[in-house]
């Protein structure tokens, strides 16, 4: 039952083969049994889940609801959920009970989905391995010695292990796509502004974007139906109508023009990963697509540009954690300054403090032009590369990450080793375009994700491309051994 798609489960719920309460209990039991090995949840909201399931059952009984009604899902612990602990993976927020609901979780709730709980993540979404969580590292269900990727590692691991049908994630520099790749699931980072940021705890506001994570592209499309769309509460929400993400899933790919950026296949890319990506591209050719080599010449510069812009915006966003209105406050502050300095030093972990300081430095007097402004100029060059390429091709394909999941603790000593892992994902956020990770094979027993990038607001196209691939392959249907133990 835990391996079924949203469409199948929705049909079973309508047919009364199973009730949402039964389905929810099944997932809660799986979490209780298997999550101690993975640590993918920070909070399991059993009571809220069972109440929502009962409500969903009543709706279904009356012939109402959507395809998400009664489906048990999880939310990354970065989306504010009214009345349910929201930590953002940080000690700073270990007692924060939001007084309001994020737009994303609110819309998914209105569609009738059941929230099983809140998933683990790198603190304030800063990390590519989920080792930066105050609540402990998450393990990869395919190999418990490996990282699940980050920052949405809890969501990815939970889906892969069958501890949620689907989940939300957020992607500032790859945080949906890279864990999706490492855990063998499907994830979509939408166009910047497509999904509301209201109630998402901010990391880097000009890059942050929420999106769906699930077993398949079709399941992601079901979530997008509920999540996407204009929101007046988000000042950078895109004021363009959202599409029907399910309508064109079955459109044939005949004549699809695929671009392969040569910079994505250069030095540093694991040869087995490269082979798997090229095999996936061949599969698309069989489906009628044509392939041409393209160039994104400024790819290398996405690392320095991102690691100036994101920390700069973070240093500004995270100034709200001052120990006054919410969050951690130190004991016995001697004055206001002492309270700020010690509350923040105690509440934030090392990686968060590091990025706050990098950003503070980049924005400080005398350095602003050389760092922040320079990084924004390079950001335009990176965007222009994509605009030019997407004039010639419909989608761009390449790897999500240079390797499969790496070992826990293997990249924590060098302060920039992990940053270099983000080489294939950062530029998408800088440009603001949508991109997916689609399971495409295994190297040494670990999943490999194919990255599919598209033009602004081309989410429906990307989902169509991924769905057609998944109709002809079964990489997305593989289940790790540990998930079969319950």
């Amino acid at each position: 039952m835990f391996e079924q798609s949203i469409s199948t489960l929705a049909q079973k719920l309508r047919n009364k083969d199973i009730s949402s309460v039964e389905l929810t209990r099944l997932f809660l039991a799986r979490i209780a049994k298997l999550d101690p090995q993975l640590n993918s949840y920070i909070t399991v909201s059993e009571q809220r889940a069972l109440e929502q399931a009962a409500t969903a059952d009543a709706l279904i009984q009356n012939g109402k609801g959507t395809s998400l009604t009664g489906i048990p899902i999880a939310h990354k612990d970065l989306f504010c959920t009214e009345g349910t602990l929201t930590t953002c993976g940080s000690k700073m927020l270990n007692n924060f009970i939001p007084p309001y609901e994020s737009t994303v979780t609110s819309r998914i709730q209105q569609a009738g989905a059941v929230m099983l709980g809140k998933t683990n993540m790198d603190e304030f979404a800063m990390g590519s391995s989920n080792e930066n969580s105050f609540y402990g590292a998450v393990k990869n269900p395919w190999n418990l010695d490996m990282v699940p990727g980050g920052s949405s590692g809890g969501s990815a691991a939970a889906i892969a292990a069958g501890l949620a049908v689907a989940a939300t994630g957020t992607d500032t520099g790859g945080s949906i796509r890279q864990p999706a790749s490492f855990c063998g699931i499907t994830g979509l980072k939408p166009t910047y502004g497509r999904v509301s940021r209201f109630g998402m705890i901010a990391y880097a506001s000009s890059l942050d974007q929420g999106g769906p994570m699930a077993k398949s592209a079709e399941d992601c499309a079901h979530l997008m139906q509920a999540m996407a769309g204009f929101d007046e509460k988000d000042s950078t929400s895109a004021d363009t109508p959202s599409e029907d993400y399910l309508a064109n899933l079955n459109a044939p790919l005949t004549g699809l023009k695929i671009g392969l950026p040569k910079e994505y296949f250069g030095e540093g890319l694991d040869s087995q990963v490269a082979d798997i990506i090229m095999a996936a591209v061949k599969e698309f050719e069989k489906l009628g697509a044509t392939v041409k080599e393209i160039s994104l010449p400024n790819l290398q510069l996405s690392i320095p540009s991102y690691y100036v812009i994101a920390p700069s915006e973070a240093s500004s966003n995270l100034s709200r954690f001052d120990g006054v209105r919410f969050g951690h406050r130190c004991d016995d502050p001697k004055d206001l300054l002492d309270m700020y300095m010690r509350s923040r030093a105690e509440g934030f972990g090392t990686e968060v403090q590091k990025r706050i300081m990098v950003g503070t430095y980049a924005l400080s007097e005398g350095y602003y032009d050389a760092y922040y402004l320079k990084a924004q100029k390079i950001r335009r060059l990176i965007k222009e590369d994509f605009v030019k390429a997407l004039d010639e091709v419909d989608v761009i394909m390449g790897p999500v990450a240079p390797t499969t999941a790496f070992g826990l603790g293997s990249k924590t000593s060098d302060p920039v080793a992990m940053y270099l892992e983000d080489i294939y994902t950062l530029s998408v956020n800088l440009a603001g375009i949508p991109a997916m990770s689609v399971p495409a094979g295994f190297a040494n027993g670990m999943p490999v994700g194919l990255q599919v990038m598209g033009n602004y607001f081309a989410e429906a196209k990307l989902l169509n491309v991924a769905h057609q691939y998944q109709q002809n392959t079964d990489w997305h249907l593989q289940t790790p051994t540990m998930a079969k133990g319950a």
Partner: protein
Amino acid sequence: MSIDKQDVQKIAHLARLALTEADADQYQHSLSSVLSLVEQMQSVDTDGVEPLSNPLEMTQRLREDIVTEENRRDAFLANAPQTEAGLFLVPKVID
């Protein structure tokens, strides 16, 4: 690009982060590494390139200047570390 320990303490103060001597040593190393990594930007010619701050180049949307929020004082105070008489409590600011 490397920075010294004094720079680290200055940045930490601007960021309102209390660092111990041992912390400062560690961050001196890690911040220097990050700054070296981003240094490669300086060799790129960006003359005449406009900085990009919003990927969609949207301008700020304006709204009517009317009250849209209800008063939820108690709900917002509920998360505060210390409150008194409906107010956030902080250490004494003025003697």
